[in-house]
């Protein structure tokens, strides 16, 4: 397994996490895009080392990169693409309501927390 890729996954995850723990939904979306990259890369790495593109040309499958994780990764990319678009729409709707795209605390929880004081 390639340390370079390993560090890339770790780095992307960390930066992604840093971003999604922010309050601004647009930052959160950026964070998820990075986390998506990280997870796709992790899937790809799980299939083994880099290799030839798995397109059969009659010379057998020697040296092929594992195609299955690629397929899984593709599905993952597509799904996270869709959900990124959905988050964008949510952010845009939140902007309609509040003028910004900040994630707010739950009102009822805050009310109960105030009872505590």
């Amino acid at each position, binding site marked *: 397994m390639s340390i370079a890729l390993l560090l890339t996954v770790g780095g992307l995850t960390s930066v992604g996490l840093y971003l999604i723990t922010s309050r601004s939904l647009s930052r959160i979306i950026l964070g998820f895009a990075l986390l998506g990259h990280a997870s796709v890369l992790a899937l790809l790495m799980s299939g083994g080392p880099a290799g030839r*593109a798995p*397109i059969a040309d009659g010379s057998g499958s020697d040296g092929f990169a594992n195609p299955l994780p690629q397929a899984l990764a593709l599905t993952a990319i597509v799904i996270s693409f869709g959900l990124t678009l959905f988050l964008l729409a949510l952010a*845009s709707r939140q902007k309609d309501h509040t003028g910004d795209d900040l994630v707010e605390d739950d009102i009822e929880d805050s009310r109960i927390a105030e009872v505590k004081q």
Partner: protein
Amino acid sequence: MIADRSPIVGHAVAAITPLALLIGTYLLFAGHNNPGGGFAAGLVFGAVLILRTIAGVQKPVDAPLLMAAGLIVIAIVTAAPIFWGDYFGDQAVVSAELPILGKIKSGSALPFDIGVTAIVIGLVASLLDGLSLIDADGDLTT
């Protein structure tokens, strides 16, 4: 409408449309043997759609209908094998000799991919709406 203010943009968009459509179609058909496939094709078509809609060359499409059609096609292709006793999701493969693309072996994977394409186009088309770029009359807000 950008096209109203700047006819050149309109012409440019109109001009690249066939080329993009060609690329998309190639991706759709080549996918089974070379990089590409329904999803990539859908994104290319979708990008063209965005471009054309923003440029004002065409009205927004009815995304839900497009996607419903795509879903129905896929569902039927997936379900069909049970009618001839195979496990569902089985693909029927046929070979055909086509110009340019050469010999392709394909089959029910093709309608499946076409369904995928339709859905992706629908998704991209809905994005324009979702980001409040389209007003109540179905026109562009910018």
